[in-house]
């Protein structure tokens, strides 16, 4: 290693590195939080990634799938993922316990354009599992707080029990250096003290926005984008300062297998982070 940066799988980018599940607990009924550490300690400490990048996770006997990294690069050593149970690979991941091994390779794709975001106000809008990739960049901004302007967070879920990282976000509300607004479509507990309504009902609460100096970071279910983008356009936030992250099927993560292609964009190497302006030009998404 010669004290230099070890690039993961420099020789064979398809080869996963064994990693141990350090912690695993439920975030909601079907979403679980996994904290993992590479078995190779040197790699665990030197693994570098950007907020918004993803990794391929493999489970022996089940297969491999892409997952966005939920932890922040500003806190090295551990990688965190929130994973929803949706298919064969995720079913298998859910059966694993702490201290079990998975395979991890990456990081892949483009991260959020931190340099562009620096100095600007950041407006996070997330719904459902959208908090998984956005948590990474949010924590990154908070760890480097001085470099960013006003930070506002709008986080929506269907019900309180389905809000990813609910306690973490309730905790963030106590901080004075960001404005965090939470909402659920429907409160079935009777104990929800935050806003009720779809995530767009939080927009009026956001303090003054200087559109040209704002970067909006959006992630959520497909249905959410339409309404949220509408609000952002109404606020006059430039289309190339609206950042979003896309998901597709992937088998390689390195621009070879072709499965993530949208038009002639490869989500895995050209994305997954795109600006709304980029997305407007993807014919398959229009």
């Amino acid at each position, binding site marked *: 290693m010669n004290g230099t940066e070890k690039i993961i799988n420099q*020789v*064979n*980018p*398809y*080869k*996963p*590195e*064994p990693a141990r599940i350090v912690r695993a607990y439920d975030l909601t009924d079907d979403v679980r939080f996994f904290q993992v550490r590479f*078995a190779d300690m040197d790699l665990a400490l030197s693994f570098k990634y950007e907020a918004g990048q993803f990794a391929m996770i*493999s489970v*022996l*006997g*089940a*297969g*491999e*799938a892409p997952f966005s990294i939920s932890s922040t690069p500003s806190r090295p050593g551990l990688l965190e993922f929130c994973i929803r149970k*949706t*298919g*064969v*690979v*995720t079913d298998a991941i859910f059966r694993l316990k702490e201290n079990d*091994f998975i*395979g991890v390779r990456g990081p892949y794709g483009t991260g959020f354009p931190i340099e562009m975001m620096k100095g600007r106000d950041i407006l996070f809008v997330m719904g459902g599992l959208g908090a998984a990739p956005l948590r990474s960049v949010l924590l990154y901004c908070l760890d480097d707080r001085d470099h960013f302007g006003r930070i506002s967070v709008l986080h929506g879920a269907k019900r309180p029990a389905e809000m990813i990282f609910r306690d973490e976000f309730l905790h963030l509300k106590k901080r004075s250096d960001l404005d965090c607004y939470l909402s659920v479509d429907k409160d079935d507990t009777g104990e929800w003290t935050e806003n009720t309504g779809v995530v767009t009902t939080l927009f009026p609460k956001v303090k003054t926005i200087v559109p040209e100096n704002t970067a909006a970071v959006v992630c959520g279910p497909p249905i959410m984008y339409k309404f949220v983008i509408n609000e952002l356009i109404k606020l006059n936030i430039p289309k190339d300062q609206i950042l979003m992250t896309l*998901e*597709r*099927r992937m*088998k*390689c993560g*390195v*621009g*070879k*297998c*072709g*499965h993530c*292609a949208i*038009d*002639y964009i490869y989500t895995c*190497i050209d994305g997954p982070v795109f600006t709304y302006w980029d997305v407007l030009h993807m*014919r*398959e998404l229009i």
Partner: protein
Amino acid sequence: MRIVKLKQDRLNSFLEAVSTDSELWGPVKKGADKHRFKIVDNPAEFDLDYTRTILPPKKIFLPPRFNMFKAMPTAYEEETMDPTKKILFGVHPCDIHGILIMDQFYTQTYNDPYYIRSRENTIILGHSCWPDEHCLCHSTGTDVANEGYDLFFTALNDEYLVWIGSSKGDDLVRIVPELFNEDLSDRDIQNYIRWREDRSKAFKAEINFKAMPDFMELKYRDAVWENLSHACLACGSCSNVCPTCTCYNVNDKPRLSENASDIARCWDACTLESYSEVAGGENFRESRSERLKLYYTHKLQAFISKYGKPACVGCGRCAATCPVGINVKTVAGALDGEEVDAFWSRYATEVTK
């Protein structure tokens, strides 16, 4: 470039002499009138009077199915990547261009070690050809190869003009220098020039490739895509036979008797329905027309805007393969407003009736 001459009846002696420590691959007859690249014991098995093989040379570098790893609970063992030395003889210019595109694709951003290792161990010996009604390489500018081979054999009368394209190629010639003749006469040069001109005139199929990116953009919602999709059998053959199609799928194949899996890789095709299916069953491209658009966006537009050349080398395999006549030629023709003679076009008329 150094050019030497070889009597055609000495070709087999040459191939035998240079392939003592390598596998020798080349075009061999399959059935009545088809060909495929096959490994042979004796170069006499080659049939050089061929137009195209069913599958392009990509199968030699990345076979349709192979294992990438043996996966174990806490380790991943790389399957031995094929390090066998190979000599691939009889490759036509279009396929050499196909290999050049794959070389570029598999080394950009990330390397594909399986391709690279196999490719590095393969010597490419090109061979001249004569076009048939499907050959489009004149339009794609891939009818002549100026790079991408170690030796290139142009057949003229009873001799070959042999272009030496690499140091490795030069080494091969030096194994049996007595077989070659260094002196090119004026007559040889004249013969070659005349042959080039005659061959140029022999092309029957043309496509306006330069206009294709614009057509793909402007006719993205044209009825032609629906017309194609009615007839498409979604068999994936157009991808499997295409020298520039690289998509693949990966499967975890557990072993019965041990706690380990084979991580298996196989060719995939974007025209297959399951290609765009994601976990949970959602499919981003349920309709055949969307999948065909992706295929042709890649061939006729995307690659051109990224690399300045189409992801089509004009080999005509899609034209020789698709049972319903969906191929680069008919699709480009239809986009260009031509009346197209293909089953899909006749069938579309029937459907709309």
